[in-house]
């Protein structure tokens, strides 16, 4: 499931948020966008999701996308199971109960199915957010800084979970991250954005599972950090 962005511009309140963005993501590729806040990362993700229209340019995507949000965006009045079933519920479709049960088990949240979001930790909420995204079986997965509010141990557990889902479901992933280390750990390619433009694209030529202590891993992190800082 390919994603191609051609000549994307986005203006908001006379301000240019994105300008002349061209990006192509291959089927099954894991791409991470990094950059300082206000660089246009989230706007680009929302354009791919179809949540905002570009002022100019075209988006080609072979499938609709599922999305995981920074705040998890769970509905507080629904239980974990109902939140995972939300994509079906909100379209007035029958919920595939067996599929949902299986997904809850796969993501380790079966025991929490009757709990409400207020009763969950940050990591558990993001697991539910991931389960909701996986429930619709779309091949494009978008993630908007999903691990930014989590402590590193919980985030690392979720990295493995996400990589497992990406591999087994052959997903095309586009993720926005505040952390360069996270981007190098997860992605095949890191896209660096600055002032609404793509500044550089770096292919991460490291085998998985990646080790953060690996000198080559550190070199990638330092290299990308230097580009972001300059």
């Amino acid at each position, binding site marked *: 499931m390919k994603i191609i962005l051609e000549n994307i511009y986005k203006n908001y309140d006379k301000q240019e948020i994105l300008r002349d963005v061209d990006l192509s993501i291959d089927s099954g590729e894991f791409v991470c966008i990094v950059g300082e806040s206000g660089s246009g990362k989230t706007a680009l993700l*929302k354009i791919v*999701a*179809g*949540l905002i229209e570009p002022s100019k340019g075209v988006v080609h995507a072979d499938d*609709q*996308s*599922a*999305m995981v*949000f*920074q*705040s998890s*965006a769970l*509905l*507080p*009045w629904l239980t974990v199971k109902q939140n995972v079933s*939300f*994509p079906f*519920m*909100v*379209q*007035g479709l029958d919920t595939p109960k067996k599929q949902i049960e299986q997904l809850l088990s796969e993501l380790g949240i079966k025991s929490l199915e009757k709990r*409400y*979001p*207020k009763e969950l930790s940050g990591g558990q909420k993001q697991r539910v957010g991931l389960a*909701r995204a996986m429930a*619709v079986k779309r091949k494009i997965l978008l993630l908007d800084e999903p691990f930014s509010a989590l402590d590193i141990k919980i985030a690392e557990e979720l990295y493995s979970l996400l990589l497992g889902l990406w591999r087994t479901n052959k997903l095309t992933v586009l993720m926005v991250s505040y952390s360069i280390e996270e981007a190098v750990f997860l992605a095949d390619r890191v896209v660096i954005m600055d002032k609404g433009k793509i500044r550089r694209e770096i292919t991460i030529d490291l085998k998985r599972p990646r080790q953060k202590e690996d000198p080559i891993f550190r070199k990638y992190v330092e290299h990308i950090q230097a580009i972001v800082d300059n």
Partner: protein
Amino acid sequence: MFRHTKYHLRKHSFGSRVFFYILSFLIIATLAIYLESGFKTIDLSKIFLIFKDVSITQLLLYSGYTFLRLCAAYFVSLFLALLVVFVVTRHKKVENFLVPIFDILQSVPVLAFFPLIIVVFAQLHLAELAAQLVLVIAMFWSILFGALGGLHLIPEEIFDAARVYNAKGIQMFFKVILPAIFPQLVTGSILSFGEGWNVIIISEYINYGNIQISLPGLGNLLSVSAGYNIGLFIASLLVLVALILIVDRLVWHRLTEFGERFKFE
């Protein structure tokens, strides 16, 4: 320094509440006797005599009428407010256009609409409709502004999450927006019902120039008994207070607690 003792933190038991209600009743009744005697004596032996002309059946029946009238006006107001919210969610520009107009209209006192309502409805002999209109004008705004306020408290990511999964129109309204604004709808409804209780007296007994509109209800009883039948006046007032307390405990208190589940963190 003030310290919380067990007494302060203890919830009042049912027994103590009943005691306070009876005490309040006795104080009001004593004051009424004093008032009836022309501020001369307080003859406690007359405390129950002042209620000798009060018909319990009439009080209960009229309470029912008043409550049903308020409920009808509340549901009409709720429906209209939700209709506005639905339109606003579909067309953002409508909100920018309507809210300033509503802001001005809601500050116009309900009594200002009286002459128009009375002339039109009295001519048509539609007293019940006149009362409903007065109540709806008073009750509508709190629900509407509560709901609109709630709409602005919904995090943008919730809308995004719904849109990503193709939520639109009616489904978006009933599955996302309506539950999301539920706590503010409850608060707005409590204020709205409060407004309703305030205007029930004028809506059930309209006396304007040569026109008189009278409807069965507690508001009517209060209006006609004031200054003429102190027993009926006090009994009507007590029943009205009891009705307000019952509705508060059985409906609003429970809905407020239930609404906690719908609040965003």
